[in-house]
């Protein structure tokens, strides 16, 4: 039988907030609002991280995700001036179908995780705290290779970003032909 411990109450409130902010992002017409709601979501998730003993990740979540990445988003939104795009596209059934399938998937998740699940695992809020030392140790020993690979991924992303946004001084022939059309 479910017992409402304080930890649970906090968890449910935070979870509700996370879901609500996600839904808000989903429904907001304005892209800027969406971005801000996503920041809220990220922050709530970061809260959860703090709660379950992952302060480093929680911090990273706020700085990298909520901070850097979302700022980048806002920057592009403002740059392009594309805050609002008409809501209803040419494919009308899309929303209903997406909602339906989404519900199905959630139902499947609930079935497999809650009803059928045999996992006796549980989370100890505030317990099993992983400190930065441990993370650093893992990162430079066991996870050295993936760490290096991520650097190359970032390098590639940088090349890509530059390559795609660099204004060519001499327009390519394709561009000219395209313009002529």
């Amino acid at each position, binding site marked *: 039988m479910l017992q409402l411990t*304080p*930890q649970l109450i906090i968890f449910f409130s935070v979870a509700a907030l*996370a*879901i609500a902010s*996600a*839904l808000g*992002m*989903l429904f907001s017409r304005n*892209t800027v609002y*969406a*971005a801000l709601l*996503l920041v809220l*979501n*990220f922050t709530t*998730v970061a809260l959860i991280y703090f709660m*379950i003993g*992952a302060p480093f*990740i929680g911090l990273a979540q706020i700085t990298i*995700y909520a901070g850097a990445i979302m700022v*980048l*988003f806002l920057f*592009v939104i403002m740059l*392009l001036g*594309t805050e609002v*795009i008409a809501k209803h*596209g*040419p494919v009308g059934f*899309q*929303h209903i*179908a*997406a*909602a339906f399938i*989404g519900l199905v*998937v*959630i139902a499947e*998740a609930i079935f497999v*995780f809650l009803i059928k*699940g045999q*996992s006796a*695992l*549980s989370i100890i*809020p505030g*317990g*099993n705290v*992983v400190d930065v030392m441990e*993370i650093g140790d*893992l*990162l430079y020993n066991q*996870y050295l290779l993936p760490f290096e690979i*991520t650097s190359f*991924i*970032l390098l*590639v*992303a*940088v090349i*890509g*970003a530059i390559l*795609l*946004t660099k*204004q060519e001084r001499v327009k390519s022939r394709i561009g000219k032909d395209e313009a002529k059309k």
Partner: protein
Amino acid sequence: MNTIPMSYFLVLSAIMFSLGAIGVITRRNPLVIFMSLELMFNAANLTFVAFSNAFGNANGQIFVFFVMVVAAAEVAVGLALIVAIFRARGSIDIDLMSSMKN
């Protein structure tokens, strides 16, 4: 016991993941689509961290760290792509990007 069952976290992440997926499917603005993708990644991260706590090891958190980096890289490329497309076409409405079909 003041523990929270693991399955709660799993359901929460599943809901967030699904909401992200719904966002990808329903939104026309690629920027919002990217955000929805981030939401999906975020949901997966939540699972990792929760398991990490449950198992009492840090491996899951390392994974989250990598995911964040990759997400950042993807966002950079994606946004650059949108900028390039906007320059070329003056619009980023993805429903208008449907010239190839059948």
